[in-house]
């Protein structure tokens, strides 16, 4: 059982919201979600918002997917914000010190 992904596209910003379990089974779904945005993006400075409001669980494969998104969205130039993580998920992100690589709010 894995989660579902919803993509909302605004002018310069793409919001990807993940409901349910964010784990290795989501790999191709997540990748398709952001890749369409990157490929179709004329503007290199596209901002990504990862909304974890409905995310119940996150595993290390999901952290790997976030790193992959960061890499493909321009590595250090990437503008990615992770929002609405519940405390236990926030703790996992902070244990990996992801606040140094992403905006977490």
């Amino acid at each position, binding site marked *: 059982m894995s989660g579902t992904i919803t993509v909302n596209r605004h002018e310069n910003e793409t919001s990807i919201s993940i409901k349910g379990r964010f784990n*290795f089974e989501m*790999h191709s779904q997540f990748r398709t979600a952001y890749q369409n945005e990157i490929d179709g993006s004329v503007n290199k400075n596209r901002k990504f918002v990862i909304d974890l409001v409905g995310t119940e669980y996150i595993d*290390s*494969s999901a*952290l*790997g*997917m976030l*790193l*992959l998104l960061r*890499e493909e969205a321009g590595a250090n130039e990437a503008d990615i914000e992770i929002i609405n993580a519940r405390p236990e998920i926030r703790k996992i992100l*902070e*244990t*990996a*010190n*992801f606040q*140094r*690589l992403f905006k977490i709010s």
Partner: protein
Amino acid sequence: MKILIVDDDRINSTILNRLLSRDGHPVVTAYNGRDGVALFKSERPDLVLMDIRMPLMNGYEAARQIKEASTDRFVPIIFLTAVTDDEGLARCIEAGGDDFLTKPFNRVILQAKISAMERIRQLHAVLRSQKEQLEKHQEGVRREMEVGQHLFSNIVRAGNLLDAPCLNHFSTPMSLFNGDLLVASYTPAGTLHIMLGDFTGHGLSAAVGALPLAELFYGLTAQGFSIGDLAEQINDKLRKVLPTRMFCAACLIEVDHRQKSIMVWNGGLPDVLVADKSGQIVRRIRSGHIPLGVAPMRREDRKVEILEMQEDYRVFLYSDGLTEATDDGGILFGQERLDALFDGQTPPERLFAAILHALNAFRGHALQTDDISLLEVVCARASEEPPGGQSHLPQKDIPPSSWRIAFTFSAQTLRTVDPLPTIINALMNLQAPSGQRERLYTVLAELFSNALDHGLLRLDTRTKETPEGFLRYYAQREERLAALTEGEIEVILTHTPHPDGGELRIRIADSGPGFDPNNVQSFLEGNLHHGGRGIALVRSLCTDLIYHGNANIAEATYRWTRS
């Protein structure tokens, strides 16, 4: 499709033969069951038409023997029968028949049955070849897994994880391969390095990353590099070899029983817990770094947490497979349940078993969803030697020869690299007296750190007397080293061969102001008292140790005998 007709009625047989031949099937005929079986074996037909009542051997028995002889493929048998009662027909199927055809024959029905059997036969052939391919593939995978497991277990056994007296460990993979790598090994100076690495994912893909990691861990530890160096070099390597979405949450621990210190570099693993004799947590070392293999390391990313080692400390290191283990209902074991075991009710020596017991009781029969590792460092046993000694690296024996090497390290060099591994490696490549590496490393390390810490950085060992002072000492050391702009350390190694070994003269001089000659004695005693065995240890290993100048030049003679 080659067809065998077994029928003692020659008229029937001829009619069938003609019908089938007209449709292009090659036909062979037998007139009794026994000949039918023999012909089946020699002609290997694809389908058999079988009469029931025949001389020598009836159709039931012939069908049974034919089925027995054709286990490697599917050969349909169609019984030719005059009976139409249910029982008679059931007996045909029981004997191994696949279908029956009632006499007199209808050509259309015969053709339909034959093509139906042909379809089943082809389906069988496809299934069979797929099964064979799968079996071959499975066998190949099994063989590769065996090789992999062999490599993997040799890696784990290469170090001191299993024989270091101060370690207890538990590790259980969720699949054949463990995505958690737990390794431990002694440095030449006798300090113990431990690493737990947890790769993204599980199984084989996670385990392949373990190979370069373990190789670097053992190699660098044997050369005397610090855990900060290890973290940096492993990070560089993993960044090169791992795909972006894979990384390794890792924790490195250095247990130094001489300096009475424990250093921890935690990048992405759960809190390392330190308990004292009350069985309660006295220190919690949180992850302070990004996991390995994600981003390039900056200088501050090498920073380790230092704590003063107390005799009664027990250090617990574990992967998130422990805290994230679930019960039948998907509830997490959690950090709180783990922390609750350190309530002072469980005696410290029982904590390790209590954690495993609590975990198993909680999980019940729930499926394991991640690799689980747990390791305990019992500080009271940190100074005990493993039964087989520390060194696991084979050393080459080079005949004693005459040579001299000199190094001068400027302040700039000292700020950026630890020169000790380089010195010891140069020495080992030139001479490598077998079995002397640890002792030589200790002598060089002690004399060199005296020159750096006291000669150039002007640190006072007496600072280390109190626990706060202990931390202040290391903070001061880091601060002063970062600010070092002047001064140098010169190391000269001179080797003279002897008939049965050799003599190594070590001269280490620093450009610092030195010490008041009247205080040299107290400086040495201070070092003896607080810096572990320090100078006394060097004296016991060398034939002589003399301080010149203002105690800023140390000269030691080390003799060795060929074993």
